[in-house]
């Protein structure tokens, strides 16, 4: 009833399209502007990133005018606040970061992969539909919450088992960072494993392989590039993680591999300085750029590695 013309006259789709094309002028104009607009926006974001990078670089250079780069790399003492015996050896911050990251990965990789294998190879469609979004929610919890959790719950619990554990230590934030990373590794690895076609699983099962053999010897290798990428992303995340280690790791940069001791990570140092009252232009002020640069180099290496590995292991199916 509402469509008057169609009742008697048969309509031609082709005519309608031609008619509309003739009438619509603005999509054509849009078509011309769109590439320019999109390019500008893309260029803008690249420029901003470059700007940040250059600031980082110039301030780092300024820092190395005041402190020798040899000291920065080789000294094992980080004592920026000490007026007389000040020392800027980045090693303690690096070990702090490596320690917490190492603990996190030791924890997150096996559990994350096990969860991914369970979800992709064993769980029913229903279970997967419930758990996958739940994982993504977990990944969205603000890290300050994890930091609190580490300090007020995990550390006291661990102290029951390890009496020597200091209030601030590497172990507790490391574990909690691991918990934070598990959903990411699980979810991304599960994506990679689910993308492996079923025909390949069937091929293996038909040879008499058990489900576990199929998962470990066919699906996991086939999904290797995605799985490795997820692990490297996890490492990047752990290296760059700030709040958890700042809250629960402490602020005593020690060159140590003892996980029960208070430590300080690269990121936690930056937080300490930026929330403190180090004046603009002081050596301490510049030091955060050098530390930031170190952090950047770490994650850069990780990203390049991830790119290389995912290309190297790519198995197309």
């Amino acid at each position, binding site marked *: 009833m509402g469509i008057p013309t169609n009742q008697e006259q048969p309509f031609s789709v082709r005519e309608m399209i031609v008619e509309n094309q003739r009438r619509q002028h603005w999509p054509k104009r849009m078509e011309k502007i769109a590439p320019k607009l999109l390019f500008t926006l893309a260029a803008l974001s690249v420029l901003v990133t470059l700007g940040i990078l250059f600031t980082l670089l110039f301030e780092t250079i300024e820092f190395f005018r005041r402190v020798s780069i040899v000291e920065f790399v080789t000294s094992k003492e980080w004592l920026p606040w000490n007026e007389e015996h000040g020392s800027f050896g980045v090693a303690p911050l690096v070990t702090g970061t490596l320690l917490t990251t190492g603990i996190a990965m030791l924890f997150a990789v096996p559990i994350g992969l096990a969860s991914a294998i369970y979800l992709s190879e064993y769980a029913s469609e229903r279970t997967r539909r419930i758990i996958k979004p739940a994982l993504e929610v977990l990944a969205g919890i603000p890290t300050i919450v994890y930091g609190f959790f580490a300090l007020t719950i995990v550390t006291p619990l661990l102290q029951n088992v390890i009496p020597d554990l200091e209030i601030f230590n590497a172990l507790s934030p490391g574990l909690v960072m691991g918990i934070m990373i598990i959903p990411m590794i699980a979810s991304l690895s599960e994506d990679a494993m689910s993308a492996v076609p079923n025909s390949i699983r069937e091929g293996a099962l038909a*040879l008499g392989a058990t489900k576990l053999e199929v998962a470990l010897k066919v699906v996991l290798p086939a999904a290797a590039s995605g799985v490795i990428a997820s692990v490297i992303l996890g490492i990047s995340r752990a290296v760059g993680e700030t709040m958890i280690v700042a809250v629960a790791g402490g602020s005593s940069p020690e060159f140590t591999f003892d996980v029960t001791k208070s430590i300080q990570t690269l990121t936690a140092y930056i937080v300490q300085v930026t929330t403190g009252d180090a004046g603009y232009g002081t050596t301490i002020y510049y030091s955060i750029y050098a530390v930031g640069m170190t952090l950047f180099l770490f994650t850069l290496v990780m990203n390049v590695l991830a790119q290389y590995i995912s290309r190297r292991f790519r198995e197309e199916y």
Partner: protein
Amino acid sequence: MMATKTKETKVAPLTVGSTAAMPTAESGEAKGVVYETKDLNLWYGEHHALKHIHLTIYENKVTAIIGPSGCGKSTYIKTLNRMVELVPNVRIAGHLAYRGRNIFDPSYPVEQLRTQIGMVFQKPNPFPKSIYDNIAYGPRIHGIRNKKVLDEIVEKSLRGAALWDEVKDRLRDHAYGLSGGQQQRLCIARCLAIEPDVILMDEPTSALDPISTLKIEELIQELKKQYSIIIVTHNMQQAARISDKTAFFLNGEVIEYAETSKLFSNPADQRTEDYITGRFG
């Protein structure tokens, strides 16, 4: 139905030991019989996909299964190595014995069954690994680690699948670099590597060009000296060319099962005749 009965009486002398037994009980192994199917029924959810199947499959023969699309050919062949149970909500009733042993017996590990039964799929499905690792996969999961032994298995299997000469210089290359026909022969070689007893093939040549198809058909003739082969095919000429016995399926039932020459030249059932002469939907 009449044809099915004819088949039963014909089969009876070969399976004396089992005809007296209960349908679900273990039947004694009859000589020359690989599979014995008795009143097999299968449902996908509510859909009754296999109805009262009776079929006996013989050693060192090529048994072809033909029938229109959706009649249950793949379902039947996948039941033989229990791959059909990967589909959710599948229900199976009836008796299916492999070499005299009930394959649904809980004490018969499904992996053990599948080690005896090789399967070649419609679409080649090599693993995303090297040619060598594709063949070595089966032996490896069954505990064979010795490099020399594996080398030998790989060569023997590839020769068996008539692929050796084409790939002997690039065993470490990725299997996906092979052509479709080569991939399918690789999948056959992968089966041969664990020295199965039976090879199931579900339309193994339907994705291949005529030359690759011919190669695989020749291969099947060669393989039947050592293996029992069950092949699903839509290609009537192919069934007639390569098989010794043919079963005609329709709507989940076996309409006729006979010597291939007999079934194609002188079918007992009108529906078979309609199908093989192309007068059927």
